[in-house]
């Protein structure tokens, strides 16, 4: 809770710097605030806000996800200086909005009440609608903003209707009391309808097919750093919110929604990977890749055990790190070339080897090649799902999905490495911050791939 307050105050401070100054001061405030928040998140939580306990709980898992999302946001802030350097007028607002959205994430990590869930989702989403349209002169960005907003509103409708049904059948908003109710009355039709509606609404938020239609356009239209934020922090938040909802709130009626989720996952894995293969634009490819990862992460619901939360956190962290790794490369290329087709990456390895390497390691991690964190994540997910025999089909689909995905990840690697002549003629070099972030991401991905226990230790598991 104190983390939430620190980040919120930082966001307000960052917002106010916009009044006095047009430059990057907000970014420094944000970095400072996030580092403080990260430090505080490692301290034991004071029971200062005990009386709000029924709305918000700050347990070990909440702390874990809070830390992950702060780390990822921090990395994005470090990249911000370069990524936003042509947003002359509204930089501070963008940083502030990102921090506000992060506050929404924190709420989603610890909600104990469906109203808190709703509030969290809205706090997370509304800044994103604005941020998606940050490139005001770009039609695609405007389209992204509008599309995201309309789709988001649609999902909110589903969510509210779902919550209404739940309230109607159980008479409570509290997650644990809903859990008690469902274990006693697993056959309550209105409750199941509510659960399914909420599942659909959350599927919108995490971009699970068939509710993913908005994501490629929004990802492509938004400024790249914002896209990276959506693909990492927003996905982490959405997934953990869904995880809490389904495994705490509706754990008593698992058999009613698990098959629906299974169908979503199968559609996601096949559709997103095949569509990803058909893309010619790296940013759109990453959008579909992000959708497909929602499919893999969904496997965590199958074969639930005590390690599920850890698996979820590990996979999301590995995936988010890799996302930041690819996007930092993409931001650089987009800045120099003004486009993000595969062709724009040609010869990057010759002019900026470190960027090419960080993107390659990240892509290999997303594909699940061993000695990267992504492999350990996929391994845990697959082994968890395979612990029940009747999930074998899902895992086969996931394996096929990964197999398809490697083909489009390779295309980007090929573009970066396999052209003898570099198409980059610029004299502009990567900044020091960029290099540091790149090294941090490569090191984290490889070290977590070899010693997965370090992650668990770091986050108190």
């Amino acid at each position, binding site marked *: 809770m104190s983390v939430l307050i620190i980040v919120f105050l930082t966001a307000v401070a960052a917002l106010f710097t916009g009044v006095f100054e047009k430059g990057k001061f907000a970014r420094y405030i944000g970095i400072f605030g996030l580092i403080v928040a990260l430090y505080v998140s490692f301290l034991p939580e004071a029971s200062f806000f005990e009386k709000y306990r029924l709305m918000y709980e700050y347990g070990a898992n909440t702390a874990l996800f809070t830390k992950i999302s702060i780390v990822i946001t921090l990395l994005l802030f470090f990249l911000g200086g370069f990524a936003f350097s042509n947003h002359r007028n509204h930089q501070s607002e963008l940083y502030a909005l990102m921090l506000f959205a992060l506050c929404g994430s924190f709420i989603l990590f610890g909600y104990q009440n469906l109203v808190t869930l709703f509030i969290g989702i809205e706090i997370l989403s509304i800044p994103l609608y604005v941020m998606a349209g940050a490139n005001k002169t770009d039609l695609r960005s405007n389209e992204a903003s509008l599309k995201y907003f309309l789709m988001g509103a649609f999902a909110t409708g589903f969510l509210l209707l779902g919550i209404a049904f739940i309230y109607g059948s159980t008479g409570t908003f509290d997650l644990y009391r809903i859990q008690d109710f469902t274990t006693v009355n697993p056959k309550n039709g209105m409750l199941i309808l509510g659960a399914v509606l909420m599942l659909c609404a959350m599927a919108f938020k995490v971009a699970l097919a068939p509710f993913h239609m908005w994501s490629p356009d929004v990802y492509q239209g938004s400024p790249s750093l914002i896209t990276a934020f959506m693909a990492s922090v927003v996905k982490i938040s959405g997934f953990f919110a869904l995880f809490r909802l389904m495994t705490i709130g509706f754990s008593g009626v698992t058999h009613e929604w698990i098959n629906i989720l299974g169908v979503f996952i199968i559609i996601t894995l096949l559709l997103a990977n095949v569509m990803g293969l058909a893309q010619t634009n790296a940013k759109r490819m990453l959008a579909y890749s992000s959708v497909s990862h929602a499919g893999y992460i969904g496997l965590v619901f199958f074969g639930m055990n005590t*390690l599920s939360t*850890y698996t979820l956190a590990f996979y999301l962290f590995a995936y988010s790190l890799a996302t930041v790794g690819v996007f930092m490369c993409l931001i650089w290329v987009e800045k120099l070339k003004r486009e993000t087709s595969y062709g724009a990456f040609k010869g990057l390895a010759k002019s900026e080897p470190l960027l090419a390497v960080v993107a390659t390691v990240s892509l*290999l991690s997303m*594909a*699940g*090649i*061993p*000695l990267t964190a992504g*492999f*350990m994540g996929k*391994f*845990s997910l*697959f*082994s968890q799902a*395979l*612990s029940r025999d009747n999930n*074998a089909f899902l*895992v*086969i689909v996931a*394996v*096929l999905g*990964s*197999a398809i995905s*490697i*083909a489009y990840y*390779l*295309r980007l690697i*090929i573009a970066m*490495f*396999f052209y003898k002549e570099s198409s980059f003629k610029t004299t502009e070099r990567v900044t020091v911050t960029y290099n540091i972030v790149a090294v941090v991401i490569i090191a984290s991905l490889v070290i977590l791939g070899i*010693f*997965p*226990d370090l992650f*668990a230790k770091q986050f108190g598991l």
Partner: protein
Amino acid sequence: MSYYLLLTLLLLPLVGSGLVFAWRNTSSKYLALGIALVQMFVTFYMLSDFDFNLTVDSSLQYEITYPWSKFIKSSIHLGIDGMSMLLLLLTNILSPLIILSSYNENVSYKNSFYGLILMMQFGLVGVFTALDGLLFYIFWEVTLIPIWFIAALWGQENKRFEFTTKFFVYTFVGSLFMLAGIIYVGIHSASFAVTDLYNADLTDTQQIVVFWFIFFAFAVKLPVFPFHTWQPDTYTYSPTQGSMLLSGIMLKMAIYGVIRYLLPITPTAILGISGQIVIILAIIGIVHGALIAIIQNDMKRIIAYSSFSHVGLMVAGIFASAVLTLRGTFTIEGAEGALVQTFAHGVNVAGLFFCTDILYKRFKTRDIRQMGGLAKVAPKFAVLFLLIILGSMGVPLTNGFIGEFILIKSIFDFNVLASVIAGLTIILCAVYLLRFYGKAMFGEGDASVLSTAKDLSPVEFSVLASIAVFVILLGIFPQPIIDMVGTSLKFVYTSLIN
């Protein structure tokens, strides 16, 4: 026994690879060769230190066990038995030769090229020493990235995008299925350690599913018919060193994997229809590969298809003995033959690819119809090349003979008709290899090419001569290899029955 030796063997190529990458200098090839040679001497030292007179139950030596992660039932478990030793020898003898073979060439980006070869060597040593299913899979995949970069970055310009992507996707798909299979077995056993995987609690149906999942990865890598379509292209368009690595060593990972992992985990599947299907596919591959090799004119393709054909024989032999053992007549002959052949084939095929490289440099073409008469101007090459050709054909007193003989005998014990068809490989092999040799070395050559063609340079001579020494030496004394693998094979095949 000191496990530091094994740790050195594993980490030396990795550290060396890092050093070579950092050494952005043309002399990085000296560094790489030095590291590979040290690695070879460490292996020889290990061999001298290796205890061959062990009982079946404790044939593992230099074991390292280190707990890895409390969330994964896997540990860092490495060790060497006779089978591993043989493949380590193959890897660490061929690697310096492969590095040496590119010595006079003007390879672009030397440090990356040699760094990747060493990284590959790291993965291979890992594969052959891992005693944990997951670790095995990890090293298995680790070898894929360097060879992909080698094939793609230094391969033939115009074709490299299609063939490398095809190669990568094929092998990656296979590997993923293997991963799913290994995880599945791991879940049903105490841990991912090899011996625990052997005792996994699987029903007959589960065994069949696991069998095909794991076999798929090996089938792609070997390759077994009909999973071979990536192979000729990749072998043809890769740089010579890439082809040598791929066919000489990397293919053997799958032979090793079949014996070490597949057979003992899924005996019921092998006794049933699945094992028979594999033998039939392997025999189809033998004939199919050989027949296609006969009509090829591209010399690298001839060797690619010949390799495909030879591998079929090894697979058929391994499975034939396994089926026989499961039916009650304990025999390890087929697997012995396959392992002897593994070593011989690795050496020979690497030699053949190097010979094609030498021919290509002289004639500037890979089409054997446009060659001829080189024997007159390059007698040293003619002799060494012939020795390697004879070795590949399996002429008695060369290294290829003894393996093929044992293999065909073990298939004969399994089924006479199968052994007759499999035996065709020897005849067909003679046809295409002698055609290749005859076209390239004799006949009327292009006078202008021949007048400028030189005999072997000292580096080329040293590589080919070392390979020729192995061809003769192992042809006359094959017994050490058979002894080396005997104990470990007995252990594996005994686990098959229990």
